[in-house]
Every structure is written in C-alpha cells, then in structure tokens.
C-alpha cells in the first residue's frame, strides 16, 4: 500500500495504491488523520490504483469521511475498480460517501 497527497487550492487530493487491508490500514489511517488535523476539509481520493480493499480498509475511509463531515467538510472518491466497488455496494459505503467515475466529477461536487 502507498498513499500520497497534494493540496491544490482549497482541495486536498490523495491517492491510495495497492492493498488496503489488515496489514496496511494503520499506515493509511495515520496519514489520512494527519491531513485532516492539518486543517484540510475538502478531500478528493483517487482510488484508480487501489487493487483490493477489506473491511479494515473501509474503516479508514469511513472514519476519515465521518470526521470531515463533523467538521463541515466532505470526502469524495473516484476511480474504484470492480473489487472495491463490490465492497462499497454491499456494505452501503456508496450510500454515505460520494463516489464519482472521474476526477472532474469529484471536483464538480465541491462547486
């Protein structure tokens, strides 16, 4: 798992690559929470290179989205593959976090 982020104007873009699972979720969570504690409230996540997610990985995304939400912010995700999509659908993540198909689509949800 690799996680990267960059701020562009008032939006913080991040991407998570590889497997987000029991072995890797703590690293991802630490990084996500650091970005949120640094004051970022509008976050867009690129999951195009996220190969695999398990419930441990879901927790990271849910916890970050919930925290942002409590601070009046928001998280939007795009680029989910079939495995990630199935996990999102089955658990209902897609009901509570905005998922778009493209970066532009994600961006437009902040305007």
């Amino acid at each position, binding site marked *: 798992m690799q996680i990267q982020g960059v701020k562009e104007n008032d939006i913080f873009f991040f991407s998570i690559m590889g497997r987000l699972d029991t*072995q890797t979720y703590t690293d991802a969570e630490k990084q996500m929470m650091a970005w949120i504690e640094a004051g970022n409230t509008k976050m867009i996540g690129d999951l195009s290179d996220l190969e695999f997610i398990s419930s441990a990985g879901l927790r990271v995304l849910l*916890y970050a989205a919930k925290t942002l939400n409590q601070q009046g912010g928001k998280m939007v995700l795009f680029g989910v593959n079939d495995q990630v999509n199935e*996990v999102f659908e089955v658990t209902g993540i897609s009901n509570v976090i905005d998922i778009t198909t493209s970066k532009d689509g994600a961006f437009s949800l902040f305007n």
Partner: protein
Amino acid sequence: MKSMIEFAGRLDQVSAGMRWIRAVAHSAGLPAKQVNALDLALEEIVTNIIKYGYDDEAEHMIQIDFELSSTHAQLRVMDDAKPFNPLQVEKAQTLSSLEDVKIGGLGILLVREVMDVVEYSRDGDRNVLVMKTLREPDE
C-alpha cells in the same frame, strides 16, 4: 486441485494466508472476481479469529484448506479459538447516513455477501467454517 496451509494465529501471519489463497485460486483458473472473494473472506475470518478468538497467550495454529471441484471452490478454516459461529451474528445494517455510522461490524457482512455458501460447525475443540463460491457454468 487441493491445497492446505497452516500458520500461527498472529496478525503478522495473515498475509501468508492471503498470498497463498491468491496463488492457489489463480492457478486453479478461477476468474479475478472469485479470487478476490476468497481473498477477502479469508482475510476477514482469519483476522477475526486472531483479534477476538483467543483467551490466552499460548501459540495457536490456524489451518485452512482449499478445494476446487467442477461446481465450486471451497475454503475451510479450522481454528482452536473459542466457539464462535459468525452466522449467528445479527446481520449488520448496510450504511445509510454518515452521522449514524458506527465504524466496524462490516467484516462478517462482507463474508456472507461475497460467498455463496457459508456453513459453521464445531468439531471437538475446533471451529470449522466452510465457505464456497459457485463456479460459472462457462468457466
């Protein structure tokens, strides 16, 4: 084709199980969707055993076997942790609003959703969980 793996019930061993099931399921010719489903179900179940199942500090082993037949692929997970039947856990609600979300409780839900058959039994001092994914007729 058949395969088996046995490893210590410790979190640092979980990835051995994942690598094994991916190699074996992929070699067996299963499509990516089923390889992913087996990988996911195994990760959830094995992690739970290690997180919740042991009452002492002793070294415990987890044994897993994989079997491929013409109709389905089957995983069987055997542990000597305390008796636990995941099918008796009340089915988690799918999420509906971000405020009400309690983080957690999605692992067993996922297992039940991505597997076609899940059967639990207690055999002596072992939990035996059988999970199957049915093969498409045209595979």
